[in-house]
């Protein structure tokens, strides 16, 4: 019988792996580089899967499913674990019934993230094991091992990937689904699942014992593998770094760790004893290095050669070990960058055009609208994490002296999915504590930046079933906010007038912008044209930062042209033109 093979990304392979391992429920909040896991899981009809409004909710749904005995998957990006940390740390105490794996998709080099935290640290902090695959085959295969480990040791398992394991494709041999061993039913076990001090005090020692047992397991599990070659150099490595090391140092002996917390002390000492020089190659923090040094093992090279910032690569490792850098041709210099921008027709364009004009301080949030911070728009001045815009804006408004100086006024800007994620509590705080800030909720009925996923406002679930469309203005009013204003994001006069009123008010105003994402919902109007006779090439329209517009220079004559294939006919550029040169 020939084996079934496919080329899968790490994320697709994890989805396949959970299906094969009999997982019953999967929950997640989208976040790069984790999003495609659930988008693929939804295609396996044996698994119930859903988008949760945030990562904490996703994990709590997962905990419920696990307590009920079902094998469970929960996925999120690395910073999502910060949101889900509260349930995680106590779930470590209760342990599981059905096995649960929590995927943490880390993003070294911050391809699409606000920080590059190393979530292996969460394993140590929450006292739960961490498993790390290094290619798509392992992404699939380690899932079953992780679920068995979860059930055997009564613990959630952190399943850590990085952008390169999540998004790289490699060949995977496929298997079939095996239903989970245990039964799904509710069994009342108060001392195990009800974390009052009286029961938690009994659970904590079990957690400590569990780590000791896991250390023993780490010594023998095939997840940790020794590949003995030449003994001059021995490398301890994990995840994608293993692939780089194999490529860069084909002769080196390797201890490849698949269970990266807790560490196998004896195995490490034995390996270290067999090689002349011990190197530790790990992206991110000196997570292995610090622990291995504490074991009393001499580490010849670690973070001194392989720094904690960004990503490693085969060429870099080779150069650092040999001390000889490959001679490279110089890259072309001074090229204009190609940053991502609002799509032609995007409803955020008009909003940021006016916010820039008003010269206010914009407290931003995480989503497509964060692109409003980039030049030439340059109209967002702070952005920290999901849901923070409104609470940060409130804090600013409370301490800055109230004046007519627009530069000292703050507008908080948040999208619909981010509002549902954690902006609602921030807004409740504002009205409770008598904020006089202005919050704008840009409701484009999708989770845009991660590729247009459904959310509680979009009217559909992950599986495509019809669902509620949460009514944001009604919700805001229910909080007790009186000034709820709707604006049309394609009418610049409307935006400016209403924003001026809101900014002059002593009371909190919430501006709701309802305009579906043009990319997700494929919304387009007939393209606009520039009347070259009227155009003076003043470049005013170019400040709205639309890729459909460009300046054409023909000899002495220059004028703006609109690419009809890109223009969505939104009319924002036409409204900023002082010469009435843009029309249908």
């Amino acid at each position, binding site marked *: 019988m020939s084996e079934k*093979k496919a*080329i899968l990304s790490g994320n697709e392979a994890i989805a396949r792996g959970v299906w094969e391992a009999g997982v019953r429920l999967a929950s997640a909040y989208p976040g*790069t*580089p984790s999003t495609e896991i659930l988008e693929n899981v939804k295609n396996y009809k044996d698994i119930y899967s859903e988008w949760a409004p945030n990562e904490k909710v996703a994990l709590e749904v997962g905990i419920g499913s696990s307590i009920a005995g079902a094998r469970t998957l929960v996925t999120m990006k690395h910073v999502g674990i910060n949101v889900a940390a509260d349930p995680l740390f106590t779930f470590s105490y209760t342990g599981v019934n059905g096995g649960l794996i929590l995927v943490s998709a880390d993003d070294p080099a911050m*391809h*699409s993230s606000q920080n590059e935290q190393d979530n292996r640290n969460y394993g140590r902090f929450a006292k739960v094991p961490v498993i790390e695959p290094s*290619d798509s085959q392992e992404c699939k295969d380690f899932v079953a091992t992780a679920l068995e480990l979860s059930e055997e040791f009564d613990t959630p398992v952190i399943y850590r990937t990085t*952008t*390169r394991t999540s*998004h*790289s*494709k*490699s*060949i995977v041999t496929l298997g079939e689904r095996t239903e989970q061993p245990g039964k799904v039913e509710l069994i009342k076990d108060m001392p195990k699942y009800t974390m009052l001090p009286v029961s938690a005090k009994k659970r904590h020692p079990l957690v400590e014992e569990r780590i000791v047992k896991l250390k023993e397991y780490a010594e023998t599990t095939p997840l940790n593998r020794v590949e003995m070659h030449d003994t001059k150099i021995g490398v301890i490595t994990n995840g*994608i770094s293993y*692939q*780089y090391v*194999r*490529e860069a140092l084909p002769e080196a002996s390797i201890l490849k760790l698949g269970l990266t917390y807790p560490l196998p002390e004896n195995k490490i000492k034995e390996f270290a004893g067999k090689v002349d020089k011990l190197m530790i190659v790990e992206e991110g923090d000196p997570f292995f290095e610090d622990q291995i040094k504490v074991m009393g093992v001499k580490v010849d090279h670690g973070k001194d050669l392989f720094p904690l910032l960004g990503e490693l*690569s*085969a*060429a*870099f490792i080779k150069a650092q070990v040999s001390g000889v850098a*490959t*001679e*490279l*041709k*110089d*890259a*072309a210099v*001074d*090229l*204009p*960058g*190609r*940053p*991502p*921008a*609002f*799509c032609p027709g995007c409803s955020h364009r008009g909003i940021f055009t006016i916010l820039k004009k008003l010269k206010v301080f914009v407290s931003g949030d995480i989503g*497509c609208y964060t*692109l409003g911070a980039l*030049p*030439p728009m340059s109209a967002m001045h702070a952005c920290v994490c999901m849901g923070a815009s409104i609470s940060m804006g409130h804090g600013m408004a409370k301490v800055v002296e109230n004046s007519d100086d627009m530069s000292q006024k703050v507008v908080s800007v948040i999208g619909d999915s981010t509002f549902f994620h954690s902006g609602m509590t921030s807004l409740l705080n504002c009205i409770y504590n008598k904020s006089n800030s202005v919050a704008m909720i840009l409701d484009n009925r999708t989770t845009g*930046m*991660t*590729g247009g996923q459904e959310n509680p406002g979009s009217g559909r679930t992950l599986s495509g079933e019809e669902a509620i469309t949460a009514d944001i203005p009604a919700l805001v009013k229910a909080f007790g906010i009186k000034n709820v204003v709707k604006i049309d994001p394609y009418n610049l006069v409307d935006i400016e007038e209403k924003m001026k009123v809101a900014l002059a008010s002593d009371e909190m105003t919430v501006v709701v912008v309802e305009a579906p994402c043009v990319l997700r919902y494929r919304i387009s109007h007939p393209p606009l044209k520039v009347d070259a006779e009227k155009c003076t090439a003043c*470049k005013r329209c*170019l*400040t709205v*930062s*639309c*890729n*459909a*517009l*460009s*300046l054409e220079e023909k000899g002495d004559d220059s004028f703006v042209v609109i690419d009809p294939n890109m223009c969505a006919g939104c009319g924002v550029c036409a409204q900023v033109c002082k010469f009435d040169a843009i029309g249908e």
Partner: protein
Amino acid sequence: METTNILLAGVGGQGVLLASQIFTSVAIEADLDVKQSEVHGMSQRGGSVTSHVRFGDKVYSPTIDPGEADFLIGFERLETLRNVHCLRPGGTIIYNSMRINPSTVAAGVAEYPDEIAAKIAAFGEKTFQVDGLGLGQEAGNPRSANVVMVGAVSSFLPLPESLWEEKIRELLPPKLVDLNLKAFHLGREAV
């Protein structure tokens, strides 16, 4: 087979990922080990996109390091120039000569570099310019420029023509197969 490294570079929306998929599918069918890597996310909004395709007897790293690419496939000329240093000595550049303005250029705050063709030629020992847009149009749709580029590269690889055709049939929606097969052949004959 020694590992072949193909770096594809273009702009979000140009079909760089579909082109990568054709390469990886053909390589698998030829019984080779394959890895492909790209970064999704911010690139979806008209930003720069690169995709790394590697195939051979055994492939470890999914990414191609600077100075290691056997082929640089440029889908746009500025993006080609941006990645020329990734080419290995003696490597081949095949690029679509079309221009897409970055938002900074469109906004008039940066200039699109001139004489890109000469600058690219100065890097690669073997450089081929392909009128991807024109040939795509000839095939029936300028959007098939990505498959024109696949066709152009295919003529340098020791993999049978029928295999490429088979994978194009598999990967594209039935309605677009004939058009893309034409695009593929126009590209294959263009270099």
